[in-house]
């Protein structure tokens, strides 16, 4: 596992705390931002309401007042009536003075000029009237025309001033209004962007969290489950899981991998033990237990299929004296050689050989009748008697064996042990017939063995 401890890894609990921390941080930042932002909007709105709007309104009001002033000046120029001129001039006076209430010197000065012009027009007109009625001489047309000319000029200059004033007034108001709408637009766009960001971030975080859960929790858990299943099926031994991002999962992975290793070790040990339990340690032939099991199976099969089945019981003659004379080592060698002979027989045709016990061996031939079995037994007997076994002192040991044969169809056998017993009796007969011989009991030959001469 140490080799795998590379790259980035984090504990799930830490990741959870990190996520909660991020959410809290985000909430605080978003709230702080919102508060600051809304405060700014509020102060902007207040500024607009308290400063800009009154300014626009006052510009507007002044524009109307300038228009009004112009119309008063026009009326005075056209009035040519003393009483009307006086009324209009009084109004002009108050109106002109009212401009001094605003802090706009340029405007106030312009308006005062208009007021002065109006006064001059009235004065000129009064002069003309005095010439008409006061002096009694009658008007001098030239002087009168000149005065009229002056009145007209004064009037025109007053009009120029009011035009200029109202022009600047209107465009000032327009600039202000444009600025205000621009501010509002900018604020609106900022709100839009801010809220898009404020809303997108949690969604992105949630998507990210779901991705992390799917990729780094659910997928690893699934592969862990698959790993467990493959261990159950005894496949994929020594599998390696991809290293997970979260430390907790690594622990689970390590446990699963360890379980996999233990499981496959057990499996291997088990099969070894099984082989050992079925095998004879010395000859590596099947042992008696597994032979009997095998025999049982073959017996059942033959009984079912109606085929024949033969058993050979092979016993080395005078084995005890070999042991006594040459030592157990040589005895074991003889047993191994015998096993090799039997193995070579089973390599030629289907048969199963086993060490039945001591110096006694057994061979089962499926589908083999008595005649064939006797032939095989004879072959084995000859092979064994022709063996030349040398000791370390170059002495030659010769062995012989007695063989008892029994076949399924040569008698009436209910169980495999009855058949085995029959073969054993045949071996007994062979032993009593002088050894180094193959014997089978006649079909009626389940006679009292005691009648057989020793």
């Amino acid at each position, binding site marked *: 596992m140490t080799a795998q401890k590379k790259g980035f890894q984090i504990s799930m609990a830490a990741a959870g705390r990190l996520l909660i921390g991020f959410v809290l941080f985000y909430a605080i930042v978003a709230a702080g931002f919102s508060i600051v932002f809304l405060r700014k909007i509020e102060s902007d709105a207040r500024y607009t309401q308290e400063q800009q709007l009154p300014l626009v309104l006052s510009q507007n009001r002044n524009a109307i*007042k300038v228009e*009004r002033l112009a119309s008063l000046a026009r009326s005075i120029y056209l009035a040519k009536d003393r009483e009307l001129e*006086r009324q209009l001039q009084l*109004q002009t*006076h*108050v109106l002109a003075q*009212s401009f001094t209430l605003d802090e706009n010197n340029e405007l106030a000065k312009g308006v*005062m000029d208009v007021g002065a012009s109006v006064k001059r027009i009235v004065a000129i007109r009064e002069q003309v009237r005095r010439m008409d009625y006061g002096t009694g001489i009658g008007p001098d047309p030239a002087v009168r025309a000149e005065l009229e000319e002056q009145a007209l000029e004064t009037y025109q200059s007053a009009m120029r001033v009011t035009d200029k004033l109202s022009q600047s007034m209107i465009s000032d108001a327009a600039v202000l209004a444009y600025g205000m709408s621009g501010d509002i637009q900018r604020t609106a766009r900022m709100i839009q962007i801010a809220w898009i960001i404020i809303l997108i971030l949690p969604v992105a975080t949630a998507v990210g969290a779901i991705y992390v859960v799917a990729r780094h929790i659910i997928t690893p858990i699934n592969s862990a489950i698959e790993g467990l299943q493959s261990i159950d099926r005894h496949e994929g031994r020594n599998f390696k899981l991809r290293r997970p991002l979260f430390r907790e999962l690594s622990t689970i992975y390590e446990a699963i991998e360890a379980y996999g290793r233990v499981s496959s070790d057990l499996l291997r040990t088990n099969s070894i033990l099984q082989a050992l339990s079925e095998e004879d340690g010395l000859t590596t032939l099947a042992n008696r237990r597994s032979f009997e099991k095998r025999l049982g199976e073959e017996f059942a099969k033959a009984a079912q299929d109606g085929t024949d089945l033969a058993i050979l019981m092979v016993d080395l003659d005078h084995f005890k004296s070999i042991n006594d004379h040459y030592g157990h080592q040589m005895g074991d060698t003889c047993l191994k050689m015998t096993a090799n002979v039997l193995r070579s027989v089973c390599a030629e045709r289907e048969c199963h050989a086993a060490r039945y016990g001591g110096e006694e061996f057994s061979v089962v031939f499926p589908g083999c009748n008595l005649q064939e079995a006797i032939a095989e037994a004879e072959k084995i007997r000859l092979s064994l008697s022709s063996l030349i076994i040398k000791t370390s002192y170059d002495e030659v040991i010769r062995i012989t064996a007695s063989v008892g044969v029994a076949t399924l169809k040569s008698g009436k056998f209910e169980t495999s042990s009855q058949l085995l017993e029959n073969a054993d009796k045949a071996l007994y007969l062979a032993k009593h017939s002088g050894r180094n011989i193959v014997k089978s009991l006649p079909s009626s030959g389940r006679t009292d063995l005691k009648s057989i001469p020793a």
Partner: protein
Amino acid sequence: MKTTILVTAAIAILAWGNAATADELKLKVATEGAYPPFNSLDASGNLVGFDVDIAKALCQQMNATCSFVAVPWDDIIGRLEKNEYDLVVASMSLTEERAKRMEYSAPYYRSHSAFAADPNRFKDISPAALKGFRIAAGSQTIQSEYLKKNYPDSKIILTKDQPEAQKLLQAGEVDLILADSIDLLTFLQAPESSKFDYVGDPVTNDFLKSSAHITAHKGNAELIKKVNVALDQIRLNGTYDRINNAYFPFSIY
């Protein structure tokens, strides 16, 4: 059962709502009644004028039922302090002393003062030029304060209201009057005043620029807040301009 509860609740809410509207504001408004065209008494003794119309518009905006009372200028602040009425709408400009004694609204119109006299006799209105002349002004007005302070060598005659000062001028008992220029406009436009006019250059002295405020007795800031809101509303919805145009040829705001 549930329906019954809901219906009962709905009725209760409606009844409560009705009670709330029934409990509407009742206000008593004082004005002078001797300051045309802002406030004066008509032939049948009703209060009329710009101030009165503005007060009525504000009352309507505040959803209040208002009654009006005419109070002599000299008494108008004292009787407000005795709680005889809630609001004063009487073209009152602010002075330091008045600001201390009352709560006051945002300005509802602006104006400035001017001298009125025979233009053939007076051109220069400096204190030196007016030395020894008789000048009339309403008592307890910002104009009277101004005269006392700046024209110590002139003879200052205080009158109980503006019409009295104007009568003195017409009768030749005073040489000049110092008054609000809009107030004077009405006076000067009358045929009887044809020999008088505004005299002197426009007065640019800050002291004589003034704005008119609505006042309430000290501590009633809540009412003044409502008045300010209503004032903004009538300014924006055109009511103010309509009233303005009925009395004056140009905006006095």
